[in-house]
């Protein structure tokens, strides 16, 4: 048997896996208190903020590309459909796994199916995520069926694909915005720059923006680690749409702050205000102006860097809302324990590995075959 070659990243992955498994055992045998820095004053930390709230947003690329290809029928974007759906499926699966770590009674995770509370945003998010994960599973199943040569099942999915994608888009719109609604309940706890009645709208639009950026990042990561080619012209198209999305986001954000009379707070030297400024610069302002430059928009490096900005800024935004923004009112400070961080890193690493294996054994990157109607028929003169 040939042993795998030892490379730097393989050592890192091995180390992360060992630590991740160690803290997993600890969490399930000793309870949340043994692994996390969570407390009665700080009941939500990194796992909710990053693994769940941020994770769902980062997986938004799948519904945007599905919308583009299946509903708008812009066939050009087909080559990035499968990687986007795979990332979405893995992303949401990781959110589900992350929940199993975070929920105190993780074995009762299925309860929202039976015990209903339609007044709860969390209930709505739970249902949407559950349903959307199934939709993504079905959308991606064609790739698996193709590999197994189960053509009949594949045909069934093919018939269902349009209703499925419409359902997927609606579900995504609902829960991406509802993740923002989660925080509507804490008007007195969340810092004024972040708390807004428009949080659902902000969450939805920034999810669209980061979804586009994530699709771009995936392409580059696949190039770097899997040696796949990149569709620069498609990524360029995504970047142009993202310019509009970001412009819209920034505009409504400023209008909202002005309307609530907190616009002046962005110049405050409070810790929260500084965090808000950094986050907004990284998430929207800098990438917006970068993408206005054609040379950036059309170069691989430029697209990678701007996407990285958007993704990091997005993550900061979600963590600010879920964690930093409520710190002052909690009367304590919170910084995740090493075990908490390791579990999050472990989950992300598993996501990367799953993606790499799926890309290796399934037909994720190869140009998808033409639609059933085939090339446009042109009859030659005889």
């Amino acid at each position, binding site marked *: 048997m040939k042993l795998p070659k030892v490379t730097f*990243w393989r050592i890192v992955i091995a180390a992360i896996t060992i630590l991740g498994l160690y803290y997993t055992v600890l969490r399930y045998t000793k309870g949340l208190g043994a692994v996390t820095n969570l407390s009665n004053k700080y009941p939500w930390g*990194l796992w909710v903020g990053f693994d769940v709230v941020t994770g769902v947003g980062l997986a938004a690329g799948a519904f945007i590309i599905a919308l583009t290809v299946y509903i708008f029928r812009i066939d050009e974007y087909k080559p990035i459909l499968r990687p986007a759906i795979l990332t979405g499926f893995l992303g949401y699966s990781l959110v589900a796994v992350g929940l199993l770590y975070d929920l105190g009674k993780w074995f009762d995770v299925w309860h929202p199916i039976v015990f209903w509370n339609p007044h709860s945003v969390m209930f709505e998010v739970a249902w949407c995520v559950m349903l959307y994960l199934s939709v993504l599973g079905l959308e991606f199943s064609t790739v698996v069926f193709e590999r197994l040569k189960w053509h009949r099942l594949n045909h069934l999915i093919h018939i269902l694909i349009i209703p499925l994608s419409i359902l997927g888009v609606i579900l995504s719109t609902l829960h991406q915005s509802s993740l923002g609604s989660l925080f509507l309940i804490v008007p007195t706890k969340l810092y004024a720059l972040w708390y807004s009645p428009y949080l659902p709208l902000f969450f939805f639009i920034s999810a669209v923006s980061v979804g586009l950026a994530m699709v771009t990042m995936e392409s580059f990561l696949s190039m770097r680690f899997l040696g796949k080619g990149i569709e620069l012209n498609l990524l*360029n198209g995504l970047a142009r749409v993202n310019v509009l999305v970001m412009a819209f986001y920034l505009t409504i954000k400023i209008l909202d702050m002005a309307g609530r009379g907190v616009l002046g707070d962005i110049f405050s030297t409070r810790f929260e205000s500084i965090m808000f400024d950094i986050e907004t610069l990284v998430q929207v302002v800098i990438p917006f102006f970068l993408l206005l430059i054609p040379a950036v928009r*059309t170069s*691989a490096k430029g697209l990678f860097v701007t996407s990285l900005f958007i993704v990091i800024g997005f*993550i*900061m935004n979600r963590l600010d809302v879920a964690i930093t923004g409520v710190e002052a009112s909690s009367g304590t400070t919170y910084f995740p324990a090493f075990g908490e*961080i390791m579990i999050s890193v472990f989950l992300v690493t598993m996501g990367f590995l799953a993606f790499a294996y799926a890309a290796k054994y399934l037909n994720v990157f190869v140009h998808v075959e033409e639609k059933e109607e085939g090339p446009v028929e042109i009859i030659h003169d005889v």
Partner: protein
Amino acid sequence: MVAIMVAITIIGFVVLDLVIQSLKGKKAQEEQKINLDFSDFRVPVSTFFYPGHTWVNIQSNGEVRVGFDDFVRKVIGDIESIEFPEEGKALKQGEKAFSVKSGNKTLSFLSPVDGEVAAINKLMLANPAEVAKSAYHSGWILAVKPTNLSANLKAMKIAEDAVEWLKAEIRRFREFALGENLHYVKDELQYEVGRTSQDGGCLSEGMLSRMDEKAVKYFEEEFLGKPR
């Protein structure tokens, strides 16, 4: 704080990867720079190759995309700009279609098909150096509405034939760089090539920039073909 921690973690991983790549890259680059070998080339399955090192890819709307192959791209190195024909212009197989500028050198490419220019690749217009690296995908130059495709295709090679042809071209290029045409190549390159020539001669990326005008002219005529 948490947001900063996560942001720094991510940036840390990206930077770490860049460092590792550049460490690895330094070693590999030195080898790669000199070692332009058969194994550096891939021939895409669905693409026809024209002897003037342009390729044709038939689109589902009946148009064909035209570009230059990865071999020439590597010989040229950094591409500064492309001189496109106007949209609507009629092209003839074997006549000049577009030209590529690198440094102070300009190379003309012949059209592989008869037809009418339907579109040009705007990305190549904006950022040719980067886009051209994907020689068979994003790096297309023209979309042409062909008028005589089946006859044109007879002059082109695909799949195994294209592989054989490209291999022969690389061999020919080595001979051009090493053999009797050596006097066209500047001294600096002679040394570099000579040093590693025991195993059949190795070529470096962007060689064209180190050739003198005469050699470039020779390359253009011999490899890209003379317009009819």
